[in-house]
C-alpha cells in the first residue's frame, strides 16, 4: 500500500473523520500495523502533531481541525488490553507492566459467549460503565473503519468484544505458558438508535486477527442473541464500511442459499417476508444480498404486470389475504412463525403458471455458491449455540 497521503481538504475535516491517513503506524501489542484511515479525534491540533492528551495549550475548535497534509504522527502506541494510547514508547512499556486489564481473563464486561474449547469469549461492556475503555476502543477502531463518528459519547452504546487466546503471544513470556485472552475485535450497538431494528453500529476485527472468521462469529452471535430475545428481524446500521459490507454480504448470501435450497424444496414462490421470518434478516437486507449475489432477475416489462399475477395486490394487503385471494391461480403460502415450527405445510403443491415480475435463478445461486465455496447442504457456522449466555 502506498504511504503517500493526499492533502486534506477543509470539507474532509469533519469531526474525527479524515479522508487521508494521519497516523502512519500503530504499535498494538506485538504488532506494528499500518493504519487504514485517518482519525482526527486523537488530536487537539494537527499542527504540532501532539495527541490531545499530551498537550494542554491548544484550544480545540468545534468546527474541526485545520487542514494539514501528510502524517501528523509517525507511530501511535496502543495497549492491546485497555487501548490506552500514547506517542511515547517508554510510557506504554511502563504501562503494560501495570495495566489493570493485563490479565489472563479480561476483568471487565459481562460474559455473553464462552467457547472454552475454541478459546473464544465475547464480553459485553456497557459504554456508561467503562467509559474510558470504550472511548479508547472507539478511537482505535476508527483507524480501521471508514465511517465512524462517535468516539467520546459512548454512554448510549454497548460494546461486544471478542477475546481470543492467541498462540503467537505464547512466546511473549517463555517461562509462563498461561492462556491470556486478548481483545481481537468488537462490534458496537446503539441502545438509543433511531431505527429500532438496528443491532449493529460498527464492527471491526483488528488487522492482526483477521482471517480467523471472527467477523462471522460476531455476526452469528448478533443474530443468535436477537433470536433468543425474540427481537427479529434486525440488521446493521447503514452505510456499512466496504469490509463490513463484504462480511455481511457473504454471511447473508450463505444463509439465503442454504434456506432456498433446503427449506423451499417443493415450493415455487417465496416472499422476502417469508425469508425474513426464517432467517431473522430484514427484508431490505435480503433484497440487498440477493441483488449483490446476482441471482435476482426481473422479467422485461412485456410480461404480465405483477398486480395481475398476485390478484390485484394493494399496499394494504397482508400476505395471507393475497394468498387466499389468488388460491385458484397458484400455490403461495406465507412462511409465518407457526409454519416455521411445522413446515410440512410447505411440502405440497407447486406452481404451474410462472408469470411473475421477479424471479430467483437457482442456477445462478448455485454458481454463486461454487464461486464463494459455500455448501448448499451444510450451513457452516462459527458459533456454538451451547456457549451462548444471553
Amino acid at each position, binding site marked *: *500500500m502506498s504511504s503517500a497521503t493526499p492533502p486534506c481538504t477543509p470539507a474532509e475535516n469533519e469531526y474525527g473523520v479524515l479522508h487521508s491517513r494521519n497516523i502512519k503506524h500503530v504499535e498494538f501489542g*506485538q504488532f506494528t*500495523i499500518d493504519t*487504514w484511515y485517518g482519525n482526527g*479525534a486523537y488530536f487537539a491540533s494537527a499542527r504540532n502533531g501532539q495527541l*490531545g492528551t499530551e498537550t494542554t495549550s491548544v484550544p480545540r475548535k468545534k468546527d474541526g481541525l485545520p487542514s494539514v497534509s501528510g502524517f501528523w504522527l509517525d507511530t501511535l502506541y496502543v*495497549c492491546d488490553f485497555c487501548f490506552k494510547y*500514547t506517542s511515547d514508547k517508554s*510510557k506504554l512499556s511502563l*504501562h503494560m*507492566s501495570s*495495566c489493570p486489564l*493485563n490479565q489472563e*481473563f479480561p*476483568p471487565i464486561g*459481562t*460474559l455473553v459467549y464462552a467457547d472454552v474449547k475454541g478459546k473464544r469469549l465475547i464480553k459485553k461492556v456497557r459504554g456508561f460503565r467503562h467509559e*474510558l475503555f470504550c*472511548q479508547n476502543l472507539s478511537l482505535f477502531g476508527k483507524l480501521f473503519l471508514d465511517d465512524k463518528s*462517535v468516539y*467520546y459519547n459512548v*454512554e*448510549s452504546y454497548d460494546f461486544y468484544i471478542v477475546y481470543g487466546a492467541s498462540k503467537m503471544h505464547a*512466546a*511473549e513470556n*517463555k517461562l509462563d505458558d498461561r492462556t491470556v485472552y486478548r481483545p481481537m475485535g468488537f462490534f458496537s450497538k446503539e441502545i*438509543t438508535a*433511531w431505527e*429500532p431494528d438496528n443491532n449493529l453500529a460498527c464492527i471491526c476485527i483488528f488487522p492482526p486477527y483477521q482471517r480467523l472468521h471472527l467477523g462471522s462469529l460476531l455476526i452469528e452471535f448478533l443474530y443468535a442473541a436477537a433470536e*433468543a*430475545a*425474540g*427481537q427479529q428481524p434486525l440488521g446493521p446500521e447503514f452505510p456499512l464500511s466496504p469490509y463490513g459490507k*463484504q462480511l455481511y454480504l457473504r454471511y447473508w448470501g450463505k444463509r439465503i442459499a442454504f434456506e*432456498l435450497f433446503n427449506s*423451499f424444496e417443493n*415450493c*415455487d414462490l*417465496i*416472499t422476502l*417476508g417469508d425469508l425474513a421470518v426464517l432467517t431473522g434478516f430484514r*427484508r431490505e437486507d435480503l*433484497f440487498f444480498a440477493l441483488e449483490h449475489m*446476482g441471482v*435476482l*432477475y426481473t422479467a422485461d416489462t412485456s*410480461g404480465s404486470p405483477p398486480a395481475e399475477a398476485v390478484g390485484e*395486490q394493494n*399496499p394494504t394487503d397482508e400476505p395471507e389475504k393475497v394468498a387466499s385471494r389468488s388460491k385458484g391461480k397458484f400455490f*403461495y403460502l406465507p412462511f409465518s*412463525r407457526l409454519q416455521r*415450527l411445522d413446515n410440512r405445510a410447505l411440502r405440497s403443491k407447486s406452481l404451474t403458471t410462472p408469470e*411473475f*415480475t421477479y*424471479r*430467483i*435463478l437457482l*442456477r*445462478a445461486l448455485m454458481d454463486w455458491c461454487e464461486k464463494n465455496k459455500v455448501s448448499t447442504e451444510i450451513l457452516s457456522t462459527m458459533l456454538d449455540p*451451547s456457549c451462548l449466555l444471553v
Partner: protein
Amino acid sequence: MAERKKRKLRLNHELASSNTRLLNFDNGNALLSLNQPIYLDRQLKPNKTKLRRVQVTEAQPELAQREPPKFRDLDLPHRRHRNTVDPLADEVYEPFHRRMKKDERSVTLADRSKLHFDVDNLRGQLTLLNQHDWIKHVPTMVSLNDRNDYEELSRKRVLARREILKNLEKFQDWEARTTAHTLAVKNYLKGNIGLGDEDDSNGLILDRSLDRLAKERAALRIAQHGTPVRIVLRNGFDLLAMPHRKPRIVLTGTS
C-alpha cells in the same frame, strides 16, 4: 457574503415544485413495500434473454490490498511491578476526553433538536390530513401524478397518514428507550449497578458449567423483571410472554 445577505422570500417556488421533500409512494420497490412473491426458477439453463438482472445499488468495489501487520518480539517481557506508577493512568486522559465529549455532544444535541422539530412537523401534517379540507393539504405532502384524480388523492392520503403514524410510533419508541437508558445511567452514577450489568471479572467463571450459569442468569432476570407467563392456545402452540423479551409462539411442551 453578498449573496447570503440577499433578502429571501418566504415562499420559494423552486422548493415547492421540487418533489424531494414530498412523500413518494410511486417509486417503492414491490418486493419490499408489497412483499410481492418471487418465483424460484429451477431451470438448469434459464433463458436470460427475457430477463434483466436486478441491480439497484452500486456494485461492491474492489477492496484495497492492505499491508499485513508485522509481528515483532517484545523488547522485554511484561513483568508486573507493583510499585511502578502507571504513566497512562486514567487521569491522563480525563481532561482531554471531557473536552472532546462536550464538543461531540453539541453535535448530538443539534441532531436531537432537529428530530424534535421534524416530529412537530409530522404532528402538524397529521392534523391537516384529518381535517375536512385534507384535499387541499395532500399535494403539499405527497408526490402526485394527477392533482384532479380524487381516487389518487384519497389513496395517498391513507398512505401518508400511515407513514406519519409509523414515524410517530417510531419516535415514541425511541423516546421510551432513551428515557429508560437515561434512568439506567443515572442509577449507575448513584452507585446502583443494574442486574446483568455486573462485570464477570474472575476467570474461574470459565470452569463452571455453562448450563448452570445460563440458569442462574435466567433466575436473576426473573428476579428483576418477573415470572414468564405461558398462555396455552390449545392448538399445539403456546404464547410465551417473558417480561424482558418480546412474546413469542412456541410448541406446546417446549421452553
